[in-house]
């Protein structure tokens, strides 16, 4: 499916989605509540068939957090980036996509570790790299600790 066709089909599913085509892949920007239904469609519908989640990360934009999912279909050979905007930066939470792509489990652990996003219905959400008693989330823009020397 070409980017135009992807765009057309996703707009049918979710009219609230925004698009950004400035980068290599078609980017779909959605509110965080709409993530799980859209992702389920992208995985299960035959014409999408996004069977491979090859990157899951998060970006801190200070006033909001943006979850970023890179999806690839091995059968159709098309790629898409789904960005889910989380507006609550104090207690950010979003549905886990672990049930759709198993690989998301560790990636979501990592995002929880470094950004503090709570993934709902995640089987084992825990600190992945840092110690369990670490205070704060280091990749947040407002993070600081007593060892850190600010430039």
């Amino acid at each position, binding site marked *: 499916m070409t980017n135009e066709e992807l765009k057309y089909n996703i707009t049918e599913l979710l009219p609230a989605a925004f698009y950004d085509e400035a980068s290599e892949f078609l980017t779909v920007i959605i509110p965080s509540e709409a993530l799980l239904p859209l992702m389920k469609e992208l995985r299960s519908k035959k014409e999408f068939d996004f069977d491979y989640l090859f990157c899951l990360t998060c970006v801190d934009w200070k006033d909001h957090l943006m979850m970023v999912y890179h999806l690839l279909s091995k059968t159709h050979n098309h790629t898409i980036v789904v960005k889910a905007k989380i507006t609550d930066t104090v207690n950010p939470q979003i549905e886990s996509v672990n049930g759709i792509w198993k690989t998301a489990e560790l990636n979501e652990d990592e995002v929880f570790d470094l950004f503090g996003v709570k993934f709902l219905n995640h089987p084992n959400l825990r600190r992945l*790299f840092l110690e369990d008693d670490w205070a704060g989330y280091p990749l947040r823009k407002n993070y600081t600790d007593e060892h*850190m*020397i600010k430039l």
Partner: protein
Amino acid sequence: MEEGGIEMDIKNDATKNKLVFPGQVHETPDGGFLVTKLDDVINWARSNSLWPLIFGTSCCAIEMMSAADAKYDWSRFGFEVARATPRQADLIIVSGTIVMKMAPVLKRLYDQMPDPKYVIAMGACTISGGPFFYNTYSVVKGVDHIIPVDVYIPGCPPRPEALLHSMITLQEKIKHEPYFRKAKK
């Protein structure tokens, strides 16, 4: 009384300590001829067979491997027996960034090495944290916060020649070390 030496009159001393020795003892500051020469021999042997621990955490380790290979060949100076266990090593070359999570591991490795043991801090990261000095939550800002360092080599990464130079500098240090003698203050 000669400079540095302590001339003792044992007979006067004996009245205090109940020690009887016929004659005078001249203590030399270096602890005597034989011991001094033994020091030299032992230090020569020690300095020319330093066994480094295989310990590389980042890109400096690539330069360290390069120093070990045929082109730079640190075995010319007696470093060829790199050990995979700290219990058989007497030199640790800290080559690469040390993060907070690695710090206790490095400390344990250092503690497991038998005395006398030496540390070379290779590269900017191990000296000060290097490029990760500012705005980092994870990097230890200088390996000397964890273990004592004998030789520092700056560079990012240092060339193998610089590493060889630091090793030869360490050998010089060992050759001037009192092995039997206690260092006098």
